[in-house]
């Protein structure tokens, strides 16, 4: 009898062994944050006075993501816009498109973040220890958790159509725009940019489009996935969509992807 019990015990242990693997419930669905903004993005940008400016009030702004680093043309940064304007958030992380989707509402608690300008482009970031920059990347997870909140997903923002040169103004910096029927008048290379290879460094592509008499430089990173793709030939007319930026006196446009270029 004893033996039979033993055999049963051993058989039970063996059977038991087939059926035991750790399981985990899947995490709850993401709950979008719901916070009322206290300020508009234009109001926030206006708080920068003189130079590097730490936001000292309880400022909450909200906007939708309009940039994407999926194609590598943006790096460690994204842009949000509301009806009053757009701003660059220097978050400092990479592969942002996986977490901050185009069209998604983002709420930023700006208190103790720092407004800075580079070549006339105002951005929100962390204080910088390098004097040549007015602000730096937010970078750290804890700080991001405290300041940048993800709201609901939504459709991608429809770019503002710019059909006349008078529409190209500083108030539209940091927003998504389409240059309608712009003409490529100048370029520094036949591809959109030049990738690094071997010992050769990556080179920005600079393709100047014109609307009326105003020029907008389409500036493309050598780290963009589409860098090696051929750019249109000179005098091509195209609709070009991207984030309107500025470097000193030059208006620039940064493409999210080549989908933003529709040759006429």
């Amino acid at each position, binding site marked *: 009898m004893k033996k039979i019990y033993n055999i049963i015990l051993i058989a039970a242990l063996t059977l*038991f*062994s087939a059926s035991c693997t750790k399981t985990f419930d899947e*995490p709850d669905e993401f709950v979008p944050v719901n916070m009322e903004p206290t300020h508009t993005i234009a109001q926030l940008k206006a708080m920068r006075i003189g130079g590097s400016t730490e936001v000292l009030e309880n400022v909450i702004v909200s906007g939708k993501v309009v940039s994407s680093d999926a194609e590598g043309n943006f790096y460690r940064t994204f842009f949000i816009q509301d009806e009053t304007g757009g701003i660059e958030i220097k978050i400092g992380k990479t592969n942002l498109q*996986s977490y901050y989707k185009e069209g998604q509402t983002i709420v930023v608690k700006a208190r103790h973040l720092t407004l800075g300008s580079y070549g006339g482009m105002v951005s929100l970031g962390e204080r910088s220890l390098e004097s040549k920059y007015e602000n730096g990347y937010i970078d*750290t997870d804890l700080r991001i958790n405290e300041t940048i909140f993800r709201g609901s997903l939504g459709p991608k923002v429809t770019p503002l159509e710019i059909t006349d040169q008078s529409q190209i103004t500083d108030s539209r910096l940091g927003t998504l725009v389409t240059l309608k029927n712009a003409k490529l008048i100048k370029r520094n290379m036949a591809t959109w940019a030049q990738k690094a290879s071997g010992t050769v460094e990556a080179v920005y592509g600079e393709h100047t489009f014109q609307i009326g008499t105003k020029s907008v430089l389409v500036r493309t990173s050598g780290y963009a996935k589409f860098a090696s793709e051929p750019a249109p030939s000179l005098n091509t007319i195209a609709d070009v969509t991207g984030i309107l930026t500025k470097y000193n006196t030059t208006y620039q446009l940064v493409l999210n992807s080549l989908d933003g270029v529709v040759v006429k």
Partner: protein
Amino acid sequence: MKIRATFIFTALMLLFACGMYAQSNGIKGKVVNREGRLPVKGAKVVLMAGTEMSAVTSETGEFQITDIPLGTYSLVVTASDFQPARLNVKVENYMKDLNFITLVAAVTVKNQDAAMMADFDTESSSDAQAIPVILTSSKDVYENIAGYKFSDIRFKNRGYESETSAVYLNGLYFNDALTGYSPWSLWTGLNEATRNQESSTGLDISDYGVSGFNGSTNINATASQMRKGNRFSVVNASGQYRFRLMATIASGEKDNGWSYALSASTRMGGNDWVNGVYYNAFAWFASVEKRLNEKHRVALTLFGSPTERGTQGSSTQEVYDMIGSNYYNPNWGYQDGKIRNSRVRKNHEPVAILNYTFTPNDKINLKAAVSYRFGKNGYSALDWYDAPDPRPDYYRNLPSYYEDDPYKASYIREGWLTDWNIRQINWDKMYDVNRNSEDGRSQYILEERHTDQQDLNAKLQAAINLSAASKLNVGAELRFNKTDYYKTIKDLLGGEHWIDIDKFAERDFASGDAIQNDLNHPNRVVKKGDRYGYSYLAHVQNYKGWFSYKFSKHGFEAYLAGEAGNTTFWREGLYRKGLFPDNSYGNSEKLNFFTYTAKGGLAYSIGGMHRIYANVAYIESAPFFQESFVSPRTRNSVVDGLTTEKTMSADINYSLRLQGVKLRLTGFYTTIKDQTNLISFYDDISRSFSNFSMTGIDQVNAGVELGLSVPVATGLSAEAAFSYGKYVYSSNPYVTQTVDNSNEVILQNERVYWEDYKIPSSPQTALNVGLDYKSPNSIYAGVDMSYYDQMYLDMNPVYRTDFAQVGLSAEESAAMRRQEKFKGAAVLNANIGKSWYIGSYNIGFSLEIKNILNNQSIKTGGYEQMRLKANEDSNGTILNYSRFDSKYFYMFGTTYYLNLYFRF
């Protein structure tokens, strides 16, 4: 803890009269060891017949006691290194021949698992397999102590890699065919079933083959070899797992010639020191054996250890200091309120063995055996596409990355100390990313890397007693191994699919054929359980023949042994890799190596007490499959200049056995030349898997070993083991670096200047002293102290190349090349146990406490990170390189192991 075997197992072959005429009342017989049935000389045979009558066995193991009064008596046979045997004999009025009395080797029985399967996840080694710490059971006075006591620091015997130690199972060589690794993980959890072990030390030859230069162990795991009886035990512990249950029954050999044995166990839970590490392990074993008649014996043995274990990753001292513990494990994160480990080993590789023994007469013993190993062996890891590195201790997530910005550094620190999702893996975030990705394409997944072997092993062996003084052992072995290397998707983490392209190549080539993992099936959509990434077969075929000849006379012994064989292996790619379309699919060239071993030894014994012996060996062995391809995951390219590894080894030994004193003193000297090594790791600078292929690694291992056991008082003995060595690299090898996502060679045959650097990862000085007590009423207790020193960190070869010195000052260069030496450390352990006999029942417990002083700062290993940090000027030009912080493992603080057992 040691439990001296208290049981007696005897196999008395024939107890009936042989009917021959006898001049007087008496008994005679031959005492042999169970394995190999070799004569045991010098055994004491005592008959309690009112007065004690005794005899000592001769050179051939024979004995005779005459003029015994008629009656039934108890006969006790004792011999050094064997368990005593007790049997009842009926003395009649003639010389009764008891024929064989079989003795079982007295092996100290450890109550812990035979191999500690703690997995240490290192980025630098091939993580195909766990490298266990083997707890050797040996009759050797040194190994008996060292094999167990030094295991806490992962001591490597004589500084050799563990794969140099041969492991046989039921007579078959079982070391891994692809890496040489010890195969203990195949039978982990089957302690009872695999307890019957014989071992040889150092250069000694074994009964099962010529063996190497680092000893051998043979496990006798057939039904008749297992201790008869039923056993059940419960373990509660804090060092590896929480609970263990084990049940075993063994029939012993029945009158009808049958014997059977069954065993099963489970090990569950984590330990006191490292979160995320757990066991979810089972084991099963069944063996049946039939003695067909006096000449033929057949056994079939089947077993497996379905095991799931969460592993421990290492981290840098910065991280340990930041969170205040040297036991931080970066591999896990909270999900569903529970700890989920990303690096889980899951394997079940059953083994079937058929053994056949033919003993036509007492001169010849023939053995045939065949085994087959199959099943699955997986190891999970995170994989990601177009998403940030999810590992919490990625260097950019640490304060040191912001050393120029104390403000950010303090934010990092605070995040680590206040938020589990920063300090550990953030599973919720990965699910979130995947659920919201376009068209359900997961960006984070859990992959499972597989090394699924099919291993067929066959052997024929004959042991021939040529004369009373000489014995010949010959064998032929054949091995076919086909191993499937691939990875599958274990969990899509909330997404719906994955696309099988090379994310690393995509960065450089954007699109087209180059980014395809398998050009034969481009842009394949893969789902849970599907194979992706890489897929190839390793074919290894090996055959060898060997002999050993032993001669002994008048205290003088000599042996000569040799082995010759051939190893062929090749890679068969199952994917046509986009980057290497002509060099990845199908068979690689077939690599062929002739291997051989030559060994000889002399021994001289004086009066059975002193023995002086010496061995010498020369071995040429084939490189292992895993080291022979520059990037086995992607292509068929073979390492340049591949050649056999050449080992020359010699030792001289003195052993003493005198009035309970046991001593062995050994000096050894070994050179190993032309070793190859492949180090594969994820290089986040080139954001790809990078491979260092090294050739021409030479080393010298020289040292002394001392084992000592001295009786101090009744039941009390003092024991010591001491190992002192000098293990150094003796050449400047070459390293070639390639990356999986490019056909570019990054470093070509770069010289690694590390001659005279130390062989890492094991203390070169190790000492253990202790007291061991056994009372007559089955109480036993022990206390011991270990001391370790001269232990060095595993090295990144590139730090020692000219390439890494460019732009460095003399001082910086010295720092770059320096090898870290760990601080010496002492560890105190103790154990206690007792067993009771109640009728035929035996019940008992044993408790072991390790590291009683709770020292939590003893480094047991680690490695230099394989990457180089490029220091750039403001224009992005690389000025020079510096090191990343090294990673370490630490010995656990105090742990206990409590075993309760019941036998009947």
